[in-house]
């Protein structure tokens, strides 16, 4: 996007655990250019933490991959989908999108394919059951099909403090 969005997310991670189930602890987020866009271009990852439980699951179009090797398949209850719409009441408003991390540098070059950003957020975002963590990327030019972005997380039972 070229402006802070509202309801449109590039990627969403929805926690489908039962109410007292595991929380998702966000470890890091990343974005990478896979097609060159306008040269010398910046980008920043935007994050959105849902404001209330979202009872309806999002689509289940991406299969989580394990950070520990030798493990095929995913046994959890997350749903991950791309190009989703986040309801305004759940946080799909401009004021609920926040940048994370620092801009990367392109000193020169006519192509920026392979430019990446990764931010280790160290558990700063917690997604309890039925919560959702969403990502977008802001850049000067909306070059089509130019960016992939993603998230790494841990699934763990956490104390429920009220």
């Amino acid at each position: 996007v070229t402006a802070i969005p509202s309801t449109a997310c590039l990627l969403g991670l929805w926690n489908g655990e039962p109410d007292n189930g595991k929380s998702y602890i966000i470890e890091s987020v990343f974005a990478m250019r896979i097609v060159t866009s306008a040269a010398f271009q910046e980008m920043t990852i935007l994050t959105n933490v849902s404001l209330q439980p979202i009872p309806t699951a999002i689509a289940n179009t991406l299969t989580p991959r394990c950070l520990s090797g030798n493990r095929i398949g995913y046994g959890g209850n997350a749903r991950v989908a791309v190009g989703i719409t986040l309801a305004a009441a759940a946080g799909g408003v401009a004021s609920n999108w926040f940048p994370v991390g620092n801009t990367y540098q392109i000193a020169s070059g006519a192509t920026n394919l392979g430019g990446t950003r990764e931010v280790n957020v160290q558990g700063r975002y917690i997604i309890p059951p039925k919560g959702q963590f969403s990502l977008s990327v802001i850049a000067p030019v909306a070059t089509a099909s130019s960016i992939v972005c993603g998230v790494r997380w841990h699934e763990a039972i956490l104390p429920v403090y009220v």
Partner: protein
Amino acid sequence: MMAVRGSQQPNYAEGTDEQPQLNTRGEQIVAQGLPPLAQLVSCGNSYQAGTTTAATPVVAIPTTAALIGLWNGEQDNGKCYVIDSVWALVVASTAAQQTMSILGNISMAQIPTAIANTITPRPLRAGQPYRGNARIAVGITLNTTDGVAANWFPIGNNPPQIAGATNNIGSSMEWDCKGMFIIPPKNQFSLTVIAPAATASSVQVGFRWHELQLPPVV
């Protein structure tokens, strides 16, 4: 009594009682379980907020003018605000190849009068409504004790300039303060952004914080 562990790591069964362990150099073995901020944020008192409309950076260290302020409205022995991180984002293109820095201002004495309450804190734990006593406002004026150039300090490293850029939307900086700033009750943390050109409506700035009961300040 602690057990010495060599090259073989244990694989304990759940629910068994086991000894803490030392390595062969006599150092106690301790491993981080979850990411560092996970337990703190899971307590549900961690929030973020920022300007909701684009603001204009300053071109000189300011005095009383702040782009955003976080005022602690707790009672005198109440929670302190532990500043986690600050950030700034360019949302409208400024002069090309422009850098920027975040400036922070910490109040030096209690400010008894609350600032306006125009920005709602957003949770770092999903689904957590704001339940604290913070007040956040944009475009505020500091008192003349705190609002002096000598009480503004840069925070973090500026984002790298991109040589040749003609548009810098999406340029951002974030600084992990790790609790470097503490805002006790009735005190205030304020931010602004300094840049080479005061391009109107070009930046947004904000912070993340944890609300915690800390030992009283004497």
